[in-house]
């Protein structure tokens, strides 16, 4: 088991390095001198020779690329992404300010969507090709196809403009949470319902299900104990991986409802040309995905006997 964990840890190193290289190089795909852009972004004036020189010295842009990268990486690992170009604050502070709002929106949506996705997915699989199943499938197809920003605006029009029941934007009480969560859940749930359905159907088509039926077990036990328990393994992985959406999964929803989360921060930073923030968000969201993936894999080894002993 320890060997397995050590091996998985080793395997993610190249991926993490790759993510860091990509995030780092985002600032260096400019054709010109990044220092000029920094001056523009920070002071909103035409850069003079002196200013550029000063910035270059200040930020160490005159050093070799590799040195700059290693410097950036060693700081990034400690959560130091440098100073914002537009505000007089460290990048990490800006991100931490926005994290609670994103977390609130994400975990509410996550909990609701998973509960419904499991329920609908299971019902849909058990009653395959019956009316309930068709309903669930159409529902999830719509969930995938309808853009969340459009759905959000429609909901605002119905509940805020016409019925005047709920606020259209803002952050604070429960009433502010309802529409964004509803909007995001619709698409979040749709994809997961499909996944639960297909995993359970796959499990139900296996030979061991026939064995279970041939033992005279009630259908309830056949489905829950024999099929679902096998289907849960991929389902849990899939659900857990979506935790990496925490950071920026809700960009569109946050923008529609002016929700002060990390998604909004990303978009605002792009417009303000505050690229260290953009860089940090790309890096963090990538790393988060890899780490969640790793944790899930290790949990897997705990749940699934095949991996536990197969090593």
């Amino acid at each position, binding site marked *: 088991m320890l060997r397995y964990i050590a091996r998985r840890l080793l395997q993610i190193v190249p991926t993490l390095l790759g993510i860091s290289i990509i995030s780092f190089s985002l600032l260096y795909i400019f054709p010109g001198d990044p220092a000029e852009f920094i001056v523009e972004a920070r002071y909103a004036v035409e850069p003079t020779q002196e200013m550029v020189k000063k910035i270059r010295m200040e930020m160490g842009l005159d050093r070799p690329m590799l040195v700059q990268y290693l410097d950036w990486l060693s700081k990034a690992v400690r959560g130091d992404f440098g100073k914002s170009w537009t505000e007089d604050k460290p990048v990490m502070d800006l991100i931490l300010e926005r994290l609670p709002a994103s977390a609130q929106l994400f975990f509410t949506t996550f909990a609701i969507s998973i509960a419904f996705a499991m329920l609908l997915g299971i019902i849909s699989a058990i009653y395959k090709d019956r009316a309930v199943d068709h309903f669930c499938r159409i529902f999830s197809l719509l969930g995938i196809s309808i853009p969340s920003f459009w759905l959000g605006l429609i909901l605002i029009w119905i509940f805020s403009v016409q019925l005047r029941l709920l606020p259209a934007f803002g952050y604070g009480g429960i009433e502010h949470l309802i529409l964004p969560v509803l909007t995001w859940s619709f698409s979040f749930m749709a994809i997961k319902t499909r996944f639960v359905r297909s995993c359970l159907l796959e499990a139900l088509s*296996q*030979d*061991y299900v*026939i*064995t*279970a*039926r*041939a*033992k*005279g*077990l*009630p259908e309830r*036990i056949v489905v829950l*104990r*024999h099929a679902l*328990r*096998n289907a849960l*393994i991929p389902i849990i992985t899939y659900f857990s991986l979506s935790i990496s959406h925490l950071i920026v999964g809700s960009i569109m929803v946050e923008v529609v409802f002016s929700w002060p989360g990390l998604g909004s921060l990303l978009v605002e930073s792009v417009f303000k040309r505050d690229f260290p923030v953009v860089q940090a968000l790309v890096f963090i969201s990538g790393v988060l995905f890899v780490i969640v993936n790793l944790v899930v894999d290790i949990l897997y080894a705990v749940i*699934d*006997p*095949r991996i536990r*002993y*197969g090593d």
Partner: protein
Amino acid sequence: MLKIENLKVYFKTDLGIVKAVDGVDLEVHKGERFTLIGESGSGKSVLAISILRLLPKNAEISGKIVFNGKNLLELSEEEMRRIRGRKIAWIPQSQSSLNPVLTVGFQSAEPMIEHLGFDKKSAFAKVLRIFDFLGIGRNRAKDYPHQFSGGMRQRVLVAMGISTSPELIIADEPTKGLDASKRAQVVGLFRRIEDRTMLIITHDLNFAEKLADRIAVMYCGKIVEVSPAKEFFNEPLHPYSKGLLDSLPSRGLKPIRGFQPSMMNPPSGCRFRERCEFASERCRREPPLFNLNGRSVRCWLHD
């Protein structure tokens, strides 16, 4: 004990109706090991699984399956469920028939917990005794299926099948996918539980020869011969039975000419006639099952 009358199982598919079982009559007596032999596509596995009524949804089934005086096809799903695993046990093929995420001990205990009202502890205790008896080893009850070899998995499946002392055991291709040495072990395994009534489905003639009391041969959805095992291997009656035996490497490796007909539109009359060296004009009509002192055969040669 088990009597099947005019059983038909048809499957509706995109390309037409597949007549997997097409009018089968047979009887399994108490205490015997009845072996159903056939090549792939003969419908033997479909026949077996239709006894338990576990066919997929696109199957249409008609006829009678009488078990202890009751027609299984007329029972409600709930009544049928109480027969499965309790009165009729199913020993499936070993490759993927065990649930990968449950311990083999628990899977073997399940039928007792479900049907005999055992609690988990006493069921497990009994499982350990059966494991001992079948040579699985007590300490392996808490292991998972993937930790077992193919032959050992077959033993677990047998343990699962006999745990409730069922009246009839149906074993589906017990030697499929096993190497020669493992097959010999399976023969030993089935001899250990010999006091029970068994319906064994197999394509493995060597295996059948070592185990069977009576043999039925299935070809293209129909039973063509039923004979006591010894007589069958000494002197098969049906030309197909003969051809099948002759194609064994140890008996000369003589092929049957032609190819197996399609299950969607089998030839009229005797289904073997296009490949049969004795075929004549009367084979265009379907032969009935002729009785010849304790044996039956579906061939005009024995009219």
